[in-house]
């Protein structure tokens, strides 16, 4: 009995440790998010939150489901593998509700030059022109049909 009496201060100290540990466990339960550690050392719910970001580019499959007439022309031409929104811009708002937004036709004098202005850095086989010499500043759709631009394939406007 005397042993316990003499070591009482140690038991008090041990009790304090146990209490602190319990407080730690309770605090941890409330502070650590529920999904932390679900897949690894991170918050599992974050994956779903990132996946919920809104889509702005509808994707060419969505465009083609309505504009099949354009697809028919385009798939036979040189621009068959250029997706719709590469030129027309992000149009998910239009795809969700066509009346919500009417796409604006791009200015071909600016748009075409982005890809087709001649530069030594571009691949040799890629069709390139010096716009000032080629068309004297006229918009490209004066002569070319943007969806099927090759002149010899009936692409002339």
């Amino acid at each position: 009995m005397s042993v316990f009496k003499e070591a009482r201060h140690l038991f008090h100290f041990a009790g304090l440790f146990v209490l602190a540990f319990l407080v730690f466990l309770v605090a941890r339960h409330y502070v650590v998010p529920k999904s932390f550690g679900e897949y690894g050392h991170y918050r599992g719910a974050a994956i779903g939150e990132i996946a919920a970001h809104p889509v702005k580019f509808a994707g060419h499959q969505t465009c083609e489901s309505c504009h099949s007439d354009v697809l028919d022309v385009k798939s036979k031409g040189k621009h068959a593998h250029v997706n719709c929104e590469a030129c027309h811009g992000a149009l998910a708002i239009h795809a969700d509700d066509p009346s919500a937004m009417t796409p604006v036709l791009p200015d071909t004098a600016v748009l075409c030059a982005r890809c087709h202005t001649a530069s030594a850095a571009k691949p040799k086989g890629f069709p390139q022109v010096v716009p000032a010499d080629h068309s004297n500043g006229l918009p490209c759709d004066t002569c070319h049909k943007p969806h099927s631009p090759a002149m010899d394939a009936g692409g002339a406007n």
Partner: protein
Amino acid sequence: MNISRRQILILLPAAAVAWKSVLAGTPEASPNYKMTDHWWSMLIDIPKCIGCGNCVRACQIENDVPDGNFRTWVERYHVTDENMVSPEVISPDGGKEGFPVAAEDAGKYFFVPKMCNQCADSPCTQVCPVGATFISPDGVVLVDQKYCLGCGYCVQACPYGCRYIHPEKKVADKCTLCYHRITKGLTTACCEACPTGARQLADLKDPKDPIHEFLKTHSVQVLKPQMATGAKVYYNDLDGSVR
């Protein structure tokens, strides 16, 4: 109502299963998407890149990337015969509005699109002190922006310079490989907008993906292989001078 001991023994496990599904909470945003079925990567075909900057613009629109920061950007290399090891590299505004016309002088020019390499052994996720950045089970390096402190360790750790601190949110931001699109069956915004097919999203776990045939039949390299980052952005026909 009288319930026998036998009925209770049958009902209890059923109730436990029901309670577990209640605790599990709401399912993922894309119900048909299974993370374990995918291992995402990207193929960049350098001979096809024309430096138009469509990918950079599309990424900024799709992901609300602030001006002056880039989740993807395009560099133009100019390598001369006299100096093969230190090329002249330019990337005006990330190549967003294209490049100045290259003069036909000595040496070679080519474009190199850059982005997060979605490393399988990423240095950036290893240094995060709070577990705010991680590799998802489908192989995409993501940032939990609610958990990020904005300390910038990951920005320093990335050997490719692919991360930045968002000027308004004050947290780390980077390419998510358009995680919100690929989980819905769409391709990334940069791939969607690329007019020449120089960028291709690839799923290494899909045996039908054309990436497998491409990797078998082409000289493909990753950036800084000596860093052993397990980079998953594969460059076709990459010049030795690219850093």
